[in-house]
C-alpha cells in the first residue's frame, strides 16, 4: 500500500517573488501595486491609482523625452537600474535646457524576480527623484515569463519645461569653440563591466550615475554661450564628438593629456585595452562653448558639487578630412568612432 502523504501535496505559491499572475490585472496585481510599488514611489495613498494623470499647466514650453534601461547587473557600485532610470531621463531633459518636472515609469518584471530586489530598485528611484525635485506620477507594470528579460527592464518618460533657449544645437558649433567635459570620463562603463564580469579589482570602480541638472543650471546662470550639450552615455565622449562633427561639418580635436580620468579608470582601461574616451558615462556631459566663455563655463561647473574636475579638453577647427582627432604622444591621429561596447583585448 503506498503511504499517504501527511502534507497537502498542492504547492504553495512563493510569496516573496513576482509571479506571472501579478501582471494579469485583478487582485494580485492590485495588491502588488498597493502594497509593494506605490508606497515606495511616494504615491498619496488617499488617491486611487489611475491610468492617466492630469497635470497642472506649466509656465513655458513642454519638453519630453523617454528612455529604456536594461542594465545588467541591476546593482553596481555608485547606483542601480532604478537611480539610472531616473537620472538618465532627467539628464536628457537637463542637457536640452529643460527643468525636469514629472516622470512616468513603465516596468517589465521577470517572473521569479525577488520582491526584495523590486523594493530596493523602487526605493532607489524614489530617492533619486526626490533629490531632483521630480515626481513619478504615472506608470505601468507587466510581468513576463522567466528568461524574457534580465530581472527587470524600466522605461521612464520625463516631462520638463524649457527654461533655456540654449544650447543652440550642434549644427551651430563654430571653428574656435572649446570642448569641455564636466568630470572624469569612463567611470560608468568601467564600473558596469567590472561588476558584471565580477573582475577582482579593488576598490570596485564606481559609476558616475548622477544628475546633471545643477551643472546645466550653473552654465545657464553664468551666461555661457552653449552651442551643444550632451551627456556622454553609450560610446562615451567619442560617440558624442562624432555626432557633433557630422552636424557642424568641422573637425573636433581632443588633447588626451587634458582629459580628466580617475586613477581607477586609467588602471582598468590600460589593463583591458580600452580608451576611456569611448567608455560610457551616466553623470558626465560634454559641452561645446564659445571660446571667450570657456573660462567662465569651467569656473561655473567646478563650483557644482561633484564636478570639480571639469576640464577643457579640446577645440574645434576647420575640417580637412578627419572629423575627430586626438592629440597624444606628440601627434594627432584619428579618434575612431566606437562600433559597440569595448571588449577586453589581448592585442
Amino acid at each position, binding site marked *: 500500500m503506498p503511504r499517504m502523504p501527511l502534507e497537502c501535496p498542492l504547492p504553495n505559491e512563493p510569496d516573496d517573488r513576482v509571479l506571472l499572475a501579478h501582471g494579469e490585472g485583478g487582485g494580485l496585481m492590485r495588491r502588488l501595486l498597493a502594497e509593494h510599488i506605490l508606497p515606495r514611489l511616494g504615491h498619496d495613498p488617499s488617491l486611487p491609482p489611475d491610468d492617466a494623470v492630469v497635470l497642472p499647466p506649466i509656465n513655458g514650453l513642454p519638453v519630453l523625452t523617454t528612455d529604456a534601461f536594461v542594465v545588467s547587473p541591476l546593482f553596481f557600485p555608485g547606483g542601480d537600474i532604478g537611480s539610472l532610470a531616473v537620472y538618465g531621463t532627467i539628464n536628457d531633459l537637463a542637457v536640452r535646457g529643460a527643468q525636469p518636472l514629472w516622470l512616468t515609469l513603465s516596468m517589465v518584471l521577470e517572473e521569479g524576480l525577488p520582491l526584495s530586489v523590486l523594493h530596493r530598485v523602487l526605493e532607489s528611484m524614489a530617492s533619486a527623484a526626490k533629490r531632483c525635485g521630480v515626481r513619478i506620477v504615472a506608470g505601468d507594470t507587466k510581468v513576463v515569463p522567466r528568461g524574457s528579460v534580465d530581472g527587470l527592464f524600466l522605461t521612464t518618460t520625463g516631462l520638463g519645461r524649457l527654461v533655456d533657449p540654449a544650447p543652440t544645437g550642434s549644427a551651430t558649433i563654430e571653428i574656435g569653440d572649446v570642448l569641455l567635459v564636466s568630470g572624469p570620463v569612463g567611470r560608468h562603463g568601467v564600473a558596469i563591466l567590472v561588476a558584471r*564580469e565580477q*573582475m577582482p579589482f579593488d576598490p570596485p570602480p564606481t559609476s558616475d550615475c548622477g544628475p546633471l541638472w545643477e551643472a546645466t543650471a550653473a552654465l545657464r546662470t553664468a551666461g555661457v554661450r552653449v552651442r551643444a550639450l550632451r551627456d556622454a552615455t553609450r560610446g562615451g565622449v567619442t560617440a558624442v564628438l562624432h555626432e557633433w562633427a557630422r552636424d557642424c561639418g568641422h573637425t573636433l580635436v581632443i588633447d588626451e593629456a587634458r582629459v580628466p580620468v580617475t586613477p581607477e579608470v*586609467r*588602471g582598468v582601461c*590600460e*589593463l*583591458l*585595452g580600452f580608451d576611456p574616451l569611448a567608455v560610457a558615462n551616466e553623470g558626465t556631459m560634454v559641452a561645446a562653448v564659445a571660446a571667450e566663455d570657456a573660462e567662465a563655463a569651467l569656473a561655473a561647473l567646478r563650483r557644482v558639487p561633484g564636478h570639480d574636475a571639469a576640464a577643457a579638453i579640446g577645440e574645434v577647427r576647420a575640417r580637412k*578630412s*578627419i572629423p575627430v582627432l586626438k592629440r*597624444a*604622444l*606628440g*601627434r594627432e*591621429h*584619428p579618434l*575612431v568612432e566606437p*562600433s*559597440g561596447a*569595448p*571588449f*577586453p*583585448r*589581448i*592585442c
Partner: protein
Amino acid sequence: MKYVDEFRDASVVDRLLEAIRRRTTRRRTIMEICGGQTHGLLRSGIDAALSDVVELVHGPGCPVCVTSASLIDRAIELARRPNVIVTTFGDMLRVPGSGESLVGARATGARVRAVYSPLDAVALAEKNPDDEFVFFAVGFETTAPATALAVLHANRRGIRNFSLLSAHVRVQPAMEAILAAPDNRVESFLAAGHVATVVGYESYADLCRRYRVPIVVTGFEPIDLAAGILACVEQLETGRAAVENRYGRSARSEGNRHAVRVLEQVYEPCDREWRGLGKMPGGGLRLRDAWRRFDAEHRFEIFTPAAAESSVCRSGEVLSGRIKPHQCPAFGRECTPDRPLGAPMVSSEGACAAYFHHRPDAGPQLVEITSR
C-alpha cells in the same frame, strides 16, 4: 603609470627619429611581427614619420588575424550547443569565420562571452557546474602560459566542465617562412618583446646567421619602438646581423623559465593553418595527449569541416608584407571594419584596420612608392 608614461615621452621619440634619419643611407625595410607593435607604430605616428627612410612592413603578428576561419567556425559550432558556453578574448569576437563571427552567432542564440583572462573562464566554470565552458585559446607564446595555467588550475581544483580549443600560434616558424620566401624584401626584424619575454631569444641567433638579418627584441611604447628601429638601422648600416635586446626590462635571452615550464607541460608544437598564409609547419601549439580531457577537440565531436577562405580577401599578402592594406582592391570598398572580409580588417590590431583608421591618406587610390 610607472614604466608606461616615461616610455611615451614624445621629445625622446622625436630625437630618436631624428637619429634614425641621420643614420640611414638608403631606405631600409623592417618588419615587426606583433599586432601590438603595429598598432603602437601607427598610433604614435612613427610609421608615417619615418616612411621616407624606413619601410615598416607589418607582418603576421596579430594572432587574431592568423587564426583560421575553420577554427572560428568550430568555436561557433560549439557555442551553438545547448549546454556549452564559449569564452574567449574580446579581440576574437568580431572576426568573421567563413561566414559569421562569434558575436554575430550570439545574436542567433550561440552562447559566447568575452573574458580578460582564461583563468577568469575557469572561475566561471567552477561557479556554473551545469554548463560546459570552452575557452577558445587564441594567441602567441605570450598568451599560452596563461591558457596552460588555466588547464593546470582546472585540473588541480577538480573542475570537470572546462576545456580549451587551442588556436595558439608560434612566431618563429612565421619569421622563417617570411625570410625563406624567394621574393622576401625584409632586411631586419623587430622581434615581439612579450613573446621573447616568455620563450627568450636565443633561438633567433640561428635565423640571423642563416639569413643575415638583424633581429632586435623590441617593446611596445613609442620610445621602445623608436629605439628598436634605430638599433636595426645601426646594424644594417654597419653590416652586422645579430640578435639584440632593446626590451631588457622584461625580456631575457633565456626567457622566463617558469612560464616555459608551464607552457611545455601542457602544450607541444604542431602544424597550424595560418589564415591567409597556409599551413605553417610547427606554427601552432596543441594540448599534449596527457591533457586530452581538457582538449575541446577530443571532448566534443565537432563536425565543421575545413573552410575555404574568401577569394577576394588578400590578407595573406598583407600579412606577409607583400602588399600594403590599401593596395588590396577591396580595401575601403567591399572590405571595411564594419563589413570585414578577413581578420586584419576587423581585429583592432589588424594591419588593414590600423591603416583604415590611422592612414586615411593611404587610400585605395594612392599607389605606394615601395623602393628607391
